[in-house]
């Protein structure tokens, strides 16, 4: 493939996947509202749109009540007045929502969505926007690390004390938890011996890494929740204290973009967690029918989203200092220890330290 073909592939697939995820983001909000409502003994949105079914008797039956809610929300957000506070820093104030959304979309570039589809170009082993990137994991880290700017700058530019407090909390929190996340994101790289996400997924053929490295998987999931500022780590928009924190001065579609960034990051990080620890697009019969990869991937993303929503519905929020001490004093040491132990064990295994043990075990059972 020439450079031009690669670029064209990236553009076309990227465009399609972005559309899919942006629609998916809208329905993630609906999913969140519906699931939350059901967990809280409520109905959730059930007015906008339904599929009429032939009813029994006089009663009309309605299917999927409220499925047009995201569209209604979007229309509302677009038509709302989009005002800027008088003493806000205009440039940064307008820049911040974009800086929040762009990284959320960028992460999608490296995620493998399905295996070796029959119609893929020959060089590509799996379906992704940029397949075969040998620094894919680093790319994720890089993009995550710049995603904090949108929030910090929004907080600063709004010229409001609540927003600044939210922005400060955001930067401190995200930097702290990025460390634990980086220490655990390395584990699949070490196990698969590659930074290519497709290789990592293929290496989980024998068993998902969550079974091999449960501690790493759990720390990663917690760190991701903190990175996404989802409950119980949603301190920077803690409604009870900061009355939604960094985005308190935003309205209309600019607020919508923060909203969008949050939910799209939920989707993409569910996908990353699925890829790194839960076998990505792998599942039963995926080798025979590669199209199943999409199904498994979306299933796993859905599961990830559901768990996040579930946690939001059930857990109170940590306090800021508790969050920090949890991140620095518990998560990070555990992640580092896990990493060191794994490294030592892997090198020992490579050097043959466990050969005798293996033989003994084989001798007993074999």
């Amino acid at each position, binding site marked *: 493939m020439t450079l031009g073909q690669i670029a064209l592939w990236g553009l076309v697939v990227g465009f399609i996947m972005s559309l899919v995820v942006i629609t998916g983001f809208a329905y993630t909000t609906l999913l969140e509202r519906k699931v939350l409502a059901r967990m809280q003994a409520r109905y959730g949105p059930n007015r906008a749109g339904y599929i009429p079914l032939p009813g029994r008797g006089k009663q009309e039956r309605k299917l999927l009540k409220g499925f047009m809610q995201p569209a209604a929300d979007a229309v509302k957000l677009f038509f709302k007045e989009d005002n800027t506070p008088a003493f806000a820093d205009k440039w940064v104030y307008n820049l911040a929502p974009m800086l929040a959304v762009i990284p959320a979309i960028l992460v999608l570039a490296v995620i493998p969505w399905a295996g070796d589809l029959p119609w893929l170009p020959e060089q590509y082993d799996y379906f992704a926007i940029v397949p075969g*990137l*040998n*620094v894919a994991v*680093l790319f994720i880290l*890089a993009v995550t690390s710049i995603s904090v700017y949108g929030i910090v700058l929004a907080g*600063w530019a709004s010229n409001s004390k609540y927003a600044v407090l939210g922005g400060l909390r955001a930067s401190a929190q995200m930097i702290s938890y990025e460390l634990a996340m980086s220490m655990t994101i390395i584990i699949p790289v070490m196990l698969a011996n590659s930074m290519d996400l497709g290789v990592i997924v293929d290496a989980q053929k024998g068993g998902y890494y969550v079974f091999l490295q449960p501690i790493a998987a759990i720390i990663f999931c917690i760190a991701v929740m903190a990175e996404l500022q989802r409950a119980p780590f949603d301190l920077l928009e803690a409604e009870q204290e900061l009355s939604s924190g960094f985005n308190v001065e935003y309205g209309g579609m600019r607020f919508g973009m923060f909203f969008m960034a949050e939910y799209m990051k939920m989707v993409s990080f569910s996908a990353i967690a699925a890829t790194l620890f839960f076998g990505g697009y792998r599942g039963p019969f995926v080798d025979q029918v590669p199209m199943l990869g999409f199904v498994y991937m979306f299933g796993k993303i859905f599961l990830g989203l559901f768990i996040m929503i579930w946690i939001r519905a059930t857990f109170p929020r940590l306090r800021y200092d508790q969050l920090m001490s949890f991140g620095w004093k518990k998560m990070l040491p555990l992640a580092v220890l896990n990493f060191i132990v794994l490294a030592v064990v892997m090198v020992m295994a490579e050097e043959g330290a466990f050969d005798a043990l293996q033989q003994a075990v084989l001798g007993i059972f074999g």
Partner: protein
Amino acid sequence: MGNPIVFGLLAVIAIGSAVGMLTSRNAVYSALFLVLNFATIGVFYIVLNAPFIAMVQITVYAGAIMVLFLFVIMLLGAEQLRGVNSEHWFHLGLSILLAGLLIVAFFIVLVMEGSTTSAAPMIDTSPTALGLRLFEGYNLPFLVTGVLLLSATIGVVIFGFSRKRGENV
């Protein structure tokens, strides 16, 4: 060195953001220009066929260090820089002098080496190759750097603890 048009564009952005960083009155703007500068340098690395370094550049410099910069600026509320004073002119003169020296040094090096080739040496830049090179060719420097960073970390921790104890007294 890739496409000269790409290079030119990147160079303009990099130099422009550097100048913007120096001239802007608002410290947050300066920090943002610096982020842009770092990101552009990351793209330079990609153009130079060094994706690993590029990603590390963005993660560490643009992602971590500059966020801390912003954090400090926002925490202290020190966005607005002070006006021009005599000290300022002294600093300006010093920096112009140093920049001139740097340019002269570059020029001399370029002339002495006579290397104006635009093609970067085509070496294997995959993470694996990079790691092997780092641990085989430059093992000792790597270790020394690691020890240095570790001691710095320990120093910070000790400093923090003693501060805390001091406060309690």
